[in-house]
């Protein structure tokens, strides 16, 4: 005996009767509706700090800025902007972002403990830091109907920025990095500003002198 399939069924709904085909049609229509009316939520997309993970390192007279870019996300090469701000006041090294900071010795060490050093307005006046033109690696080309071909980065990009330092050290500065990226899923993030604090001690061939 043939076993009835769902499409053969007659289902009672209230006082009426609904055929299996009708039931399937309702289900299919409902599923289709859900697919074409996606109320897309914020949770579908990463927080930009997670999508574009920023780190920066001072190596010799160069800043090395790295973005680790989440899968499905990309950053525009022509939208990076880098600036430095000299820091004044009490500077707690332990409050620097995790990672590395330049030490007096070999250049890079893990942040540990809280040390405090004060850089007053006078010491800032003695120091000048300028950024040279950033050096970008080749990216990949992204095409869209509005802007044509744009160079973008996926997965990871390291940008090297020469530092031109004149005057006396020690000193402290903050690197401000503005970037802009999008998700393949169809959103673009507002320009993102990330920062990293550095303390200059005056070695590694940098101009300036130890007091």
């Amino acid at each position: 005996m043939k076993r009835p399939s769902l499409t053969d069924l007659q289902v009672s709904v209230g006082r009426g009767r609904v055929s299996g085909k009708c039931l399937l049609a309702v289900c299919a229509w409902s599923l289709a509706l859900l697919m074409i009316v996606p109320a897309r939520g914020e949770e579908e997309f990463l927080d930009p700090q997670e999508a574009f993970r920023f780190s920066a390192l001072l190596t010799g007279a160069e800043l090395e800025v790295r973005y680790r870019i989440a899968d499905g996300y990309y950053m525009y090469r022509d939208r990076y902007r880098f600036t430095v701000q000299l820091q004044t006041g009490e500077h707690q090294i332990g409050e620097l972002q995790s990672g590395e900071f330049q030490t007096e010795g070999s250049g890079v060490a893990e942040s540990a403990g809280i040390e405090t050093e004060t850089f007053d307005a006078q010491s800032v006046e003695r120091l000048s830091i300028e950024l040279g033109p950033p050096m970008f690696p080749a990216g990949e080309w992204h095409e869209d109907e509005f802007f044509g071909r744009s160079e973008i980065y996926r997965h990871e990009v390291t940008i090297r920025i020469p530092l031109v330092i004149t005057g006396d050290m020690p000193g402290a500065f903050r690197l401000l990095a503005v970037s802009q990226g999008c998700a393949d899923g169809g959103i673009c993030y507002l320009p993102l500003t990330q920062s990293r604090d550095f303390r200059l001690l005056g070695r590694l061939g940098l101009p300036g002198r130890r007091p």
Partner: protein
Amino acid sequence: MRRSARILLFSVVVVLATVAGFQLSGPDRKGQVDAGVLLAATLPDLSGVHQSLGQWTGKVVVINFWATWCPPCLEEIPHLVRMQSRFGTQGLQFVGIAIDEMEKVKRFVEEKGINYPIVVGQLDAIELSKAAGNERGGLPYTLVLDRSGRVVSQHYGGLTEDNLLPIVQKLL
């Protein structure tokens, strides 16, 4: 067999209704969007005259945060323009909030013939967008407000007529 089919039908309906409810009631579910902040905000239009976003209360208002540097935003704008033409007389009102430079927005609006009000801002518009639930700062970001000024839908990413129509039609 009839009983099991009824149970199946009931289960399917419950599952679909639950999923649909979660999909379509995002903002209310999370309670993130404070319409009061939006409706109290004022931003300059393309002539520099400050416009209150509350002035359109009474209509079904679609507030669209966008920028000229955002390709998904530019992609959806023709859909919004067509819907404004089609349903404007029934009380549908689009309002664009451009997070951008005034001159760039003016040029774009002129070129594309945008037929609904555009206001422009930078940090203030970014803050407004965040206060309106866009904590991650993604664009485009769109909110649908019913005639009483209540936010009934929020949407990240580009919209088309097909996916916006079912949301606004029931409010008109």
